[in-house]
């Protein structure tokens, strides 16, 4: 398969994933996830 075709397939998949994410309201769902620092990220840091 030509690489141009592969690039277009990957781009189309991206569009489909984005459209699905918008229709599922996923941007609202992740608002909290984006704001908070996870326990994994702060693991082991001495706390005040």
């Amino acid at each position, binding site marked *: 398969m030509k*690489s*141009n075709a*592969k*690039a*277009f397939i*990957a*781009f189309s*998949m*991206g*569009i489909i*994933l*984005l459209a*699905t*994410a918008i229709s*599922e309201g*996923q*941007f609202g*769902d*992740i*608002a909290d*996830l*984006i*704001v*908070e*620092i*996870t*326990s*994994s*990220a*702060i*693991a*082991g*840091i*001495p*706390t*005040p």
Partner: protein
Amino acid sequence: MTWHKKGKANLTKLRLLRTFVQFIMFLLMNLSFFLIGATWLVLPVVMPKSIFTTSEGAFDLLQRMLTTAIIPLIPLASFFLIGAVFGRMFCSWGCPFGLFQDIIGFLTSRFNKYEPTKDTNDSYRQIGEFIVGGSVLVSVVIGIGIGLGDAEQVKASFGVFSEQPWTALSPATFLFTVIPLLFYWGTIDTFFSWETFVQIDIFFWIRFLIFAGGLILIIYVPRGWCRWFCPVGIIMGQLGKNSMIGVGRNISKCTHCGICEDVCPMGVRILSHPPEKVRSEHCTNCLDCVAACPEDAMEIKFL
């Protein structure tokens, strides 16, 4: 390497421009500096959540969504859309950890650098593939466990890895989250008092050792972390091989002088690739080869 004056000047200009763009991207991802709240700017770069970050790197968010039992459509869309068009361009033009590697590389430019062979590049890259596969697998297992059973029990079983398995170990998290938080919380003082110093969690030292190892690596191997271990780079490299934007070589102008290969920070053997486009999972479209070519044989190609 016999340097051409024009090529050297072009390369310096391009690297300055790239550093400027990298700083702008870093600020865009840390808009809390300007009191702006969370954004949905999910880019295929290494950017763990920290004090000032208002968006998150796609792989960090992907793990977070999987371990919360949400199908990670947004980070996947980010990978596919950006990867299909730009390839790994964000690794060199937008990634904050890439900027850190460039700064360290510049500061240690007088050191003897190790230039790995293609085989070494490919074999060490398998470690990065293992990191991607392992992190996704663990995240999926946690997500399924949380979706089907007792969330608290599953989280307790996986401990510090329960929300973002790779982010917990990533040297980028140590740099962008751990170090700023030590200052923000004021707990940096802990390191100057023996009584509190000895109480520091062992996991902190594990993270520190990984960060120190990564630092030594990038001192001696230019962009060593990007080449071999970065999960985002591994994913974007696969998409980047067939991306719409890339670099190609005009064979009527090319004299095979090899300057393009010498300046490539990722060690891509450009002359061994087809002239119409460099199809390497390591190429980050940094455009150093385009700027440095004395014959203007290297070109930006679209489709």
